[in-house]
């Protein structure tokens, strides 16, 4: 981790602190950035739609990474937090016809408030008790939306939104929305890197590693845990707001416990405690998801005895299997394995 490629020496502190330390890292980031910008030109509409969903989920998963991966607080309510963001954004957009650049941040703030309330339970409890509270958040969200007056959140009918628009330009098509989502996602990811490298991020890691020791060092453990939920839920709310403007239809079925588990699976696969890991996890899990969705019908047509439910069933088996296998055999995720490979390459031929 601390190992730099051969020949890299730091002459001042700002260079030492920088995230990107070599020319080649800049180059590969630039190539990746250009690739992302060119996606709508390179691929067909289906891939662009998938990319949009990946970008939205990336925002949410990065938030979960901060709560769970960095601060170590199990969170099974991320989809509910996302839903709060989506509904808030949808509500202020339809009722008060606010533009998206106000309603999406408002969604984030509302989700952050909702998450903070449940994060406060970390005052008294930890471990799976906390997981229970976040599951309760999931159920309460569901109940609240379905039972509050229909004129507020649309009840079981859901909310329908107008497309986001800026100076008269409407982000109606998938490729125009892609750029909007990409910009917001980039801002959020850069923000996440900033947060985890700041004083607060280090406090999160300290609390995750040992809360007694970190309280001895003067960290306010309760405030840190609650703010981890606050930050994570804010990201979820922004993702939810984006989702509302992308799908332009918000309903409770989009934010179930099952979706929360998907997010957790993403950060387990990618690697907990790494922003890049969260992004990789989103990419891989969504990729598997899309592959199953597109291959499933072909398979069930070729072998009729399997039946049409095979897509949903196979998705369950793959998701559950992936979570179990990773937790048992690779609990630190792919990023950790990648870092080991990178280090061993750099110090080759020495084994350690």
């Amino acid at each position, binding site marked *: 981790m601390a190992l730099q490629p051969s020949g890299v020496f730091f002459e001042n502190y700002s260079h030492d602190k920088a995230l990107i330390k070599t020319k080649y890292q800049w180059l590969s980031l630039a190539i990746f950035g250009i690739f992302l910008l060119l996606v709508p030109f390179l691929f067909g509409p289906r891939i662009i739609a998938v990319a949009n969903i990946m970008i939205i989920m990336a925002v949410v998963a990065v938030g979960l990474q901060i709560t769970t991966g960095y601060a*170590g607080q*199990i969170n*099974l309510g991320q989809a509910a937090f996302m839903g709060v963001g989506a509904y808030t954004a949808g509500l202020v957009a339809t009722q008060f016809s606010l533009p998206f650049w106000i309603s999406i941040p408002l969604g984030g703030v509302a989700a952050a408030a909702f998450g903070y309330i449940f994060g406060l*339970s970390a*005052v*008294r*409890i*930890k*471990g*799976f*008790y906390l*997981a*229970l*509270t976040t*599951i*309760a958040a999931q*159920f*309460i969200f569901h*109940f609240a939306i*379905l*039972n509050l007056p229909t004129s507020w959140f649309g009840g079981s009918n859901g909310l329908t939104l107008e497309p986001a628009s800026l100076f008269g330009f409407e982000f109606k098509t998938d490729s125009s929305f892609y750029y909007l989502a990409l910009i917001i996602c980039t801002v959020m990811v850069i923000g996440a890197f900033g947060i985890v490298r700041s004083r607060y991020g280090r406090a999160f890691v300290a609390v995750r590693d040992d*809360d*007694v020791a970190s*309280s001895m060092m003067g960290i306010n*453990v309760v405030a840190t845990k609650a703010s981890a939920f606050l930050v994570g839920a804010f990201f979820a709310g922004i993702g939810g707001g984006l989702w509302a403007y992308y799908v332009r239809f918000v309903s409770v079925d989009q934010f179930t416990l*099952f979706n929360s*588990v998907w997010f*957790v*699976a993403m950060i*387990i696969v990618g690697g907990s405690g790494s922003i890049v890991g969260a992004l990789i996890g989103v990419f891989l899990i969504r990729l598997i998801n899309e592959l199953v969705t597109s291959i499933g019908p072909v398979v069930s047509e070729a072998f009729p005895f*399997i*039946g049409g*439910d*095979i897509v*949903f*069933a*196979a*998705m*369950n*088996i*793959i*998701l*559950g*299997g*992936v*979570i*179990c296998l990773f*937790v*048992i055999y690779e*609990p630190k995720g792919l990023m950790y394995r990648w870092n080991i490979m990178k280090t061993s390459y750099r110090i080759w031929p020495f084994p350690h």
Partner: protein
Amino acid sequence: MIGEFLDYAINGALIGLLYALVAMGFVVIYRASKVFNFAQGELVVVGGFIVWWLTLGMGLPWYFAIPLAFLLAAIVGYVIERLFFSKLVGESVFSMVMVTIGLLILIRGIVLVVFGAQVRPFPTIFPLKPIIIGDVLIPQSLLYGGILAVIIALALSWFFNQTRTGLKMTASAEDHQVALSMGISVRMSIAAAWVMGSVISTIGAIIFLSGKSLTFLASEIGFIALPVALLAGLESIGGLILAGIIMGVVQGLAEGYLDPIVGGSVGSILPFFIMVFILFVRPTGLFGWKTIERV
């Protein structure tokens, strides 16, 4: 008026006892292995499908099918322990929780592949005719289920608090490493816990589903039983009976009196509000061990 009240309360209490029975599966697994099993509802579904397959699929008479179903459920529990939890002895809470959640989804997928998503009729094991006392209608399956729940709770409570094996299992729930160094086989304990949890879930499935229909969605009872387990405190088996009755009566009365006013589903969400309240106020529940770390 009073008859209506009694009807809601008694039926609520009996449903609460059913929740207590399902929650017993949680508590047994937790009490013996320190694994909080989110996949409990799926074990109920697996138990239900095994019973369905043996009775309606294979055509066995129920007095033969049910013991066989228990045996198969025990094997399922043992296989789960072998495949997943024997590798996780001494691991962090996070790993355990995540594996049970992975298991929840995995089992649901396997059930869908093996049995499909169709609605199946479940055999009528208890007579359908309700018992009528005054104005109160009591379904027989719930009545026998309640009695069974109390008996099983007393037996398990005795087993865990009085017998040597039970105490050994309790020790491995306290701390895997300490238990190992005392010469207790944590693996055996976890295996026994999963076998017992799986069998209890099958009993729960029989009572819950008798005479109704069965789909993979029946697993929701696993989440409904969570508040009961928490109210009792996760270590207390006897306390489950009281917690189940309290939760069931509260839910029954809310369904009877509040739902018509508010327009539905208060009864089904109230337990979760109570659960959040307990988590904030008294995370050990009514009878749990007071060892929760509050850092």
